[in-house]
């Protein structure tokens, strides 16, 4: 008896559920149908309609967040474009693309991939990215892209796999007030190794005990901070064919000696430290100079407004007779090889947009990075702080992108270890670099 009652109730409930969902379903359908009719008439702001569909094409843009959050690109784009909807998917820097690899392996790759430039060759080698040679050549602003970004940064094995995206380059920052107090010219920061060391000595004499905050302890900083000093002396990390490591040659040794002198004379904070980055001490004015990236601007601004108004940037020092240099890092942006049809079109639209005036504005003003095109430096915002952006622009022209080799990630460790051994006083520069070169040659040959 009770059983039958129960089943009646159940049956009624089920019917209700079916009814409810069909109503919802119908509502959904009519909603789509309705908007479809009106959307054909809709004017698209950018004048191109990639799909001609009723609904916006949805694609996913995956990037890394850590300090700055690149989902702003998606937000800004979505505000001004109707036919394409960008779905931002940000993962913390620390996870190092594990989840992305899993997605690509499973066939679920996001359509648009913002990749750290040192990872680009490996992803390209693994077939995850689409070649875009024609696309790149046909952009109207190709000529305007900074030269180092055209030679490297977006290509591997003679094919173009990406557009340059947001650039993070390395330079040093200095506290103008401290300079003035020590009797140094705030408009002419040191340019050579020797000048830099002398400036440190002067600052110390003026009572600034630790003139420079720097560290090379984190893997990656041997590339970001150290390599530009090698390039400045005409040295190279790898040879032209990328078959041999040249880091044991004289320019590299000289560069390493420079850092060793900084360490031994107490001019710098502990350069083997992995505890904190360089920004904190500089922003707190405990040091007068710091090695940093583009994000240093935002970091100082948020921690010490007054210092932000009174600081300058300069390219890294060079040995006598050399050319100052910088490391161009950051992200390039690619289309997944798994994207096709209208999604691929949409992805290309987006990666085109990021280098437009609007896109570059986001890069510079919202994220604190640097744009890939020269015109990106022609804005009011940049012109207002020439003392900061001047050096950055120079860096974009004279700097280098990392060596585009799929196993570059494995080569950073041995170099970093060598530098560490030298700075800890356990080994001399030449033998340390020779040892590193041997290990790296081993990687190149395996």
């Amino acid at each position, binding site marked *: 008896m009770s059983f039958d009652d129960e089943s009646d109730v159940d049956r009624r409930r089920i019917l209700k559920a079916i009814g409810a969902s069909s109503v919802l379903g119908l509502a959904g359908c009519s909603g789509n149908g309705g908007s479809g009719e009106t959307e054909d008439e809709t004017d698209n702001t950018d004048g191109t309609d990639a799909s001609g569909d009723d609904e916006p094409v949805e694609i996913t843009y995956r990037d890394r967040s850590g300090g700055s959050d690149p989902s702003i690109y998606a937000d800004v784009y979505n505000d001004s474009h109707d036919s394409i909807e960008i779905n931002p998917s940000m993962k913390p820097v620390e996870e190092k693309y594990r989840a992305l690899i899993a997605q*690509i392996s499973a066939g679920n790759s996001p359509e648009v991939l913002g990749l750290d430039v040192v990872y680009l060759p490996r992803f390209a080698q693994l*077939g995850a990215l689409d070649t875009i040679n024609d696309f790149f050549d046909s952009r109207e602003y190709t000529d305007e892209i900074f030269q180092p970004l055209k030679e490297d940064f977006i290509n591997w094995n003679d094919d173009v796999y990406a557009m340059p995206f947001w650039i993070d380059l390395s330079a040093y920052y200095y506290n103008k007030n401290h300079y003035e107090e020590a009797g140094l010219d705030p408009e002419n920061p040191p340019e050579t190794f020797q000048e830099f060391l002398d400036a440190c000595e002067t600052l110390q004499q003026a009572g600034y005990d630790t003139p420079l905050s720097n560290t090379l*302890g984190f893997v990656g900083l041997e590339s970001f901070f150290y390599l530009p000093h090698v390039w400045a002396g005409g040295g190279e990390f790898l040879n032209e064919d990328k078959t041999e490591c040249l880091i044991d040659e004289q320019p590299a040794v000289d560069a390493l000696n420079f850092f060793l002198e900084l360490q031994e004379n107490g001019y710098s904070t502990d350069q083997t430290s992995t505890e904190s980055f360089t920004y904190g001490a500089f922003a707190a004015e405990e040091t007068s100079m710091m090695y940093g990236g583009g994000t240093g601007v935002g970091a100082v601004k948020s921690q010490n407004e007054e210092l932000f108004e009174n600081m300058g940037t300069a390219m890294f020092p060079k040995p006598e007779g050399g050319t100052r240099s910088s490391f161009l890092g950051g992200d390039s942006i690619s289309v997944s090889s798994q994207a096709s049809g209208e999604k691929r079109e949409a992805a290309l639209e987006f990666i085109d947009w990021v280098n437009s005036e609007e896109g570059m504005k986001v890069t510079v003003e919202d994220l604190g990075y640097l744009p890939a095109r020269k015109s990106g430096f022609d804005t009011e915002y940049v012109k207002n702080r020439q003392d900061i952006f001047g050096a950055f622009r120079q860096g974009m022209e004279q700097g280098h992108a990392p060596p585009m080799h799929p196993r570059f990630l494995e080569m950073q460790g041995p170099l970093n270890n060598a530098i560490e051994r030298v700075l*800890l006083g356990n080994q001399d520069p030449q033998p340390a670099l020779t040892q590193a070169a041997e290990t790296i040659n081993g990687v190149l040959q395996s």
Partner: protein
Amino acid sequence: MSSRNTLSDRIGRFVPDRFSSSTTGEPGINWTPYLYLLPAFVLYAVVLVYPFIDTFILSFQRITTLGGERRWVGLQNYEAILSDPIFWRASLNTVIFSIGMVFVPLVLGLGLAILIDTGVSGTSTFRSLIFVPVIVPLVVAGIIFGWLLGTNGLLNSVLVGAGIIEEPMRFLNSTTWSLPSVLVMVIWKRTGYYLVILLAGLQGIPDNVYEAARVAGKSRWATFRNITLPLLKPAILVTVIIGIIDSVKAFAHVYVMTGGGPSHSSEILATYFYKVAFRFFQFGKGAAYGFILFAIALTLSLLVIRFSGGSEI
């Protein structure tokens, strides 16, 4: 027919008595145990076995395209790993690491457990407090200790303040001190875990055992050695095995604090494995590495069981 409708009764109506050998008393294959095992086995088979086999096959291959082609390289991956000097450095470090992860907390935990077991007041407070580190997320613990042992950290300020050293010392970024520094965190985190297990074991030993020993005139030490320890053997064995397996697999402890550096001085097998697979993206090699770790964990566990003469496990 019971008029109650409890869960077990409903299950009973579902599972015919035929499957229960106890009531029918019939000989023949008893399916019941397999039924009990079935759900677990299904989950295991569906979720883990396929990936496991896939990874095993991958260890003999190299990936050409992500999610696509692979090519066979035979034993090359295994050879490459076993001939890599860093692998052997990491192995040595792992031995040291497991002493810190298994044996030191075991001895400390045992000592503390004995002290607590003597029945001083506040037993559960001590026990709970010493267990808290187990609950703290590993990454956070690594960061806390990274800071405590850093140049601006507590240990240095104590040492400098007390005049023992003049300048702050390097701990985490020193080739000599990096591994011991990580072990301090590991010991802090694991001791409570073992303490709780051993304490329970101790408290489970009935008091009359001690009485009997005292009546028989045995000294405390002899009692401990001949009665307490043997009775604790199962507990100790469980913790040692879990500890050894964990120390072969555990990578976050080291990775968060030193990343394996400087210069591989704190590199353990698990951190290097992680780098090979997820930083260098050498997946075939990573798979091979994973299996080498699996084999090591298995061998060590079997050795421990054999050595303890146990049929316990």
